[in-house]
């Protein structure tokens, strides 16, 4: 029983991190009609930026999180404006430009990885924070870093949800995500909204990177596996659905941890995709993908 609870804690905490990255992928998919294959690298860069903020300014971990989110968000906007804009202008999805965009995303992933290599080298970096020993609840260990992940992710989700549902700007973001032309006709400045969407998505990835930092090391190659898992999470939850992305992340995290725990632990990375396949077979739209994504 204790073991099960341990697994649940671990699964949910890692799942939330998947969810944060998946959220960005989902947001970009709805906003720009593209699957952003360089998102793992923004997660990696965000994580490195967290270290940079701590070592340059000496601020506490929480402010490093905010700092990394802001810098990565701005970086995301620059990447979108300078590189992606001319491609997405021609349309996304299954159009020719959409295909070009996929290639461009892969290219950006390689480019960003090499930029990070130049800046930080290939060696893994430990996170300059220590949370000390976990809190023990009887036999169950609850590491403080997990609590941090849980709290930060909840706060971020609440802020994002409030922004999207309660503010005018958030309403416009949702409108643009659904249909750019119509939103233009509503008087929404669509290019600015697209930049905003991209920036927010990248900031979320950075948050995930900073949150995972103390558990794993930061390394330039950390992005690709995260991208795959987050992608699985986004699809499981329903591509384009934001609550779905978070739900998908938690499900993927829980599923793979429980399977690794009770089946064969060495195949951990396979379970996420197993879940993906099963969900796609049973419910091709993903769990929450039906109402939200009526888009043709």
């Amino acid at each position, binding site marked *: 029983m204790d073991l099960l609870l*341990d*697994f649940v804690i*671990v699964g949910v905490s*890692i799942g939330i991190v998947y969810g944060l990255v998946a959220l960005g992928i989902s947001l970009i998919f709805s906003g720009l009609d593209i699957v952003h294959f360089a998102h793992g690298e923004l997660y990696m860069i965000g994580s490195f930026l967290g270290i940079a903020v701590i070592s340059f300014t000496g601020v506490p971990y929480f402010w490093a999180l905010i700092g990394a989110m802001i810098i990565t968000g701005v970086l995301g906007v620059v990447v979108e404006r300078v590189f992606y804009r001319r491609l997405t202008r021609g349309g996304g999805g299954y159009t020719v430009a959409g295909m070009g965009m996929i290639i461009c995303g892969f290219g950006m992933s390689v480019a960003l990885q090499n930029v990070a290599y130049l800046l930080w080298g290939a060696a893994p970096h430990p996170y300059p924070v220590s949370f000390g*020993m976990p809190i023990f609840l009887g036999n169950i260990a609850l590491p403080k870093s997990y609590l941090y992940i849980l709290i930060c992710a909840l706060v971020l989700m609440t802020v994002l949800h409030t922004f999207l549902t309660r503010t005018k700007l958030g309403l416009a973001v949702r409108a643009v995500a659904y249909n750019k032309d119509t939103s233009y006709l509503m008087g929404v400045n669509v290019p600015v909204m697209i930049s905003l969407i991209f920036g927010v998505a990248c900031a979320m990835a950075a948050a995930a990177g900073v949150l995972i930092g103390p558990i*794993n*090391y930061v390394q330039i190659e950390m992005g690709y596996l995260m991208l795959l898992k987050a992608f699985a999470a986004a699809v499981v939850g329903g591509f384009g659905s934001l609550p779905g992305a978070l739900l998908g992340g938690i499900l993927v995290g829980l599923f793979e941890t429980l399977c690794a*725990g009770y089946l064969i*632990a*060495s195949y951990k990375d396979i379970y996420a995709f197993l879940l993906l396949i099963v969900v796609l077979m049973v419910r091709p739209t993903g769990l929450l993908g039906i109402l939200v994504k009526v888009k043709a």
Partner: protein
Amino acid sequence: MNRYPPKKTGNGVRNALLAFTAASLVAGASAASAGVIKVGVSLRMKTETGEKYGQMVADEFEAINAAGGVNGNTIEVKLLNDECKSDIGVANATKYAYQDNVHLFIGSSCSSVSLPIVDVLHKAGVPMLIPHSTNYKITLKGSPWVFRVPISSRFSAAAAAKYTAENIGTKIAYIWASDAASQADAQKFYEYIETYHGELPVYAEQFQEGELDLRAHLLKIKSLKPEALMISAQSQDFARGLVQSYEVGIPPSVKRIGGSAASNRPAPILSGDAIKGVFFHAAFSFADPDPKVQEFVKMTAERYGVANPDHDFSQAWDSVHVARVAFERADLALTDDSLAADRAAIRDALGTVTGYVTLGGGVVDFCADATPECRDGNKTPVLIEYTKGGEDYELRVIGKTTFDADFGLAGMEEEAMKLRESLDN
């Protein structure tokens, strides 16, 4: 000695000419024929540390040249990075063997890279001097071209296992990464415990190299309450496992044990305080008070800015000097036509190197037979414990054991035969 060593190669006429000049200038240098001994080096130079010991290998050979070379011959070193990836390592070895026509190959760091390179160089007939790889299978393949400076996992793991069994306990959980060295370390460890203490592993699982999340394994291990936990993996994976083992709440009373890669510099830096009390086996410790060791440490600190070199450093250094001894003993013609003969001569000369005392204190003894007994050079693992983690980590030596050359080979005839068959195909 020859004052005009040719710097560049590739021009037979010029080499011959220089050889002629050298011979006429330096009377009495018997076999000296002022040629170029070409050495190809392929190491894991993915990290800053790796780049530094790679540079050190090149610098050491240059120092030999500057001191007059070997028997009047100069050594030309080429350095390639294999990133600890087997495909890159094989490509490097192939290039060295067939394109650069090297006389000696030094490499690689990682066992998973060295293993396939053995096959490549066996076919090409190039002597291979291994500076870091510890997997016991490398020499078990039985290629006459292969020589290993470091300590085979059949010795080192046993040393750690013996210490653990006698001082800590035999209820041990194991997780190991999928790379060849880590796998062999763990396997040899629990085989020893099983053979000599009759205790089966409490938990034994492999994980993918580079796996970020080991907590599923560790949580299960926690519930099994072992006396010790061995995490056998390359330094980053090891450090990650170590930190996560505390995170999931495996109590500090459970002794953490590392494989040979636990000594690599990134491990204590990455794992911080979590590494305190962890012990591992290695060929060398910078904490060794031996003056020779301290001189070496001073050298790496001054020249490469590494104040606490690991055994990758020391063994890279040892490999250069083992090679030098072999070059001195080999009768080399060093012309374009004598490539195969020169390679064989270096191989045979390596087979005569005995009594070379490594920086770590172990003695490298090679012999002519293509057997693990002959080709696993160093047989003296050192057991080392971390007393402090982080950037300025500290170590202490807790013991040294020397094994017989044939230790751990009993019952491995079948595996050896299979490996040899695959080598000949």
